[in-house]
């Protein structure tokens, strides 16, 4: 078994996040002309967790950043321009990792992208209906909320098999098991990744606190709770959920404080499903047209 506590190795291995191959031709076509359709480009990039991450990270890097942080894909596109976008897309997509199933969470290839897309759509829906956060920010936060899990799975620690075998008999939740066995959990990894990449602190809070939003900084609590709610609803829908998915505790106190009600969340599901099925086919493939 590999060493369990190799936190820095996990973080350093995650230099890019995989993207779905289907969007590359369309993305390149959109970025090669001089009259790119900004809205279409934004939608395309936003559908892919890895690409959205890289675009935002680059836009907020020391080279491109100015006093104003980019918190939306649209802002990042405007800041970067089509040539840089092309470069990011090509390098990200050719360096993809999705050709191999990642280990540790029982995922099939592409599962994290599917699940993150569902969380993003749920978050956007709740943001619009409850006015808890800007819908675009909520969508982006949903896309990037669980990057640490992919990093852990990509690092391919066989110790993750050990975790899988000890939940729920020895540990009630996956988070408890990761902390006890690894010495850190996937949210620590997400936080480190987002900080290293220069993400705004709001997104770092989402990545670090989404499983227990009551502990989030006051200024970020609404968005973090929104992602917490979206995460659990998306888990129930099943798309891309790994073996860990149902082993987490809902934070009822935070949900109530934010004004969530079960009947209203359930009532939103038909519309959420319709939105999800625009992008995810019955066979589980993600499509972007």
């Amino acid at each position: 078994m590999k060493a369990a506590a190799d936190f820095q190795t996990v973080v350093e291995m995650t230099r890019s996040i995989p993207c779905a191959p289907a969007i590359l031709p369309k993305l390149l076509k959109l970025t090669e002309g001089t009259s790119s359709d900004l809205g279409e480009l934004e939608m395309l990039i936003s559908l892919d967790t890895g690409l959205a991450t890289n675009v935002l990270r680059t836009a907020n890097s020391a080279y491109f950043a100015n006093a104003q942080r980019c918190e939306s894909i649209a802002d990042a596109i405007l800041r970067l321009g089509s040539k840089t976008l092309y470069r990011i897309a090509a390098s990200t997509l050719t360096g993809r990792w999705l050709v191999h199933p990642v280990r540790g969470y029982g995922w099939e290839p592409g599962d994290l992208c599917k699940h993150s897309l569902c969380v993003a759509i749920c978050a956007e829906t709740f943001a619009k209906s409850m006015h808890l956060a800007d819908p675009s920010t909520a969508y982006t936060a949903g896309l990037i909320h669980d990057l640490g899990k992919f990093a852990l799975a990509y690092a391919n620690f066989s110790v993750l098999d050990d975790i899988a075998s000890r939940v729920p008999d020895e540990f009630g939740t996956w988070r408890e098991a990761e902390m006890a066995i690894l010495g850190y959990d996937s949210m620590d990894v997400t936080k480190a990744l987002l900080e290293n990449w220069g993400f705004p602190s709001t997104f770092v809070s989402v990545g670090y606190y989404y499983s227990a939003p009551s502990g989030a900084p006051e200024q970020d609590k609404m968005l973090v709770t929104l992602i917490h709610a979206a995460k659990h609803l998306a888990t129930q829908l099943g798309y891309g959920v790994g073996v860990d998915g149902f082993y987490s505790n809902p934070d009822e106190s935070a949900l109530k404080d934010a004004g969530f009600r079960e009947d209203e969340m359930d009532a939103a599901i038909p519309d959420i499903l319709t939105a999800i099925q625009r992008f995810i086919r019955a066979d589980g493939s993600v499509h972007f047209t």
Partner: protein
Amino acid sequence: MVKAPQFVDDHMRTIIVGVADFKFTTDPSVCLATYALGSCLGITFHDETRRIGGLLHAMLPTAQLHKEQKIRETMFLDTGIPKALNTLVRAGAKKQDIRCKVFGGAQLMATDNFFRIGSKNIDMFYKISQELELDVVAWEVSGRINRTIKLNNQTGEVIVKIPTKPEFLR
């Protein structure tokens, strides 16, 4: 009882059933499959005599909450199950010969007020199965796992796949 999978011939065609969807077949060489049943329920229907099978992937217990909306009947158990039965009978199945198996209904960890779709779905299915006198021969529900299922219309057997575990038949 769990048996070793010896389930689908390579030449068998598989029809995929999406979320909030129902499909059926009268072709014995066809399988019906649905992916990633979280808290949703996947219900297989099979008339072994006539080799008519159906699969419903319903997401929510009742359409009553959604009266104001244009609904998909197959999204809800209380509208989807009657629709599935009617469709199968119209296709030639005899209701008294249809055997049902039910899968899914995964539940999040203990919560009194949120995210109870899995348990609500199971309760609703039980109620409807009593009302409609369904012959339910297998229950593979609840727990904290995602399930993928595949109905073999030749045999009525269902293969169940869950993350990190070997497949098994019900």
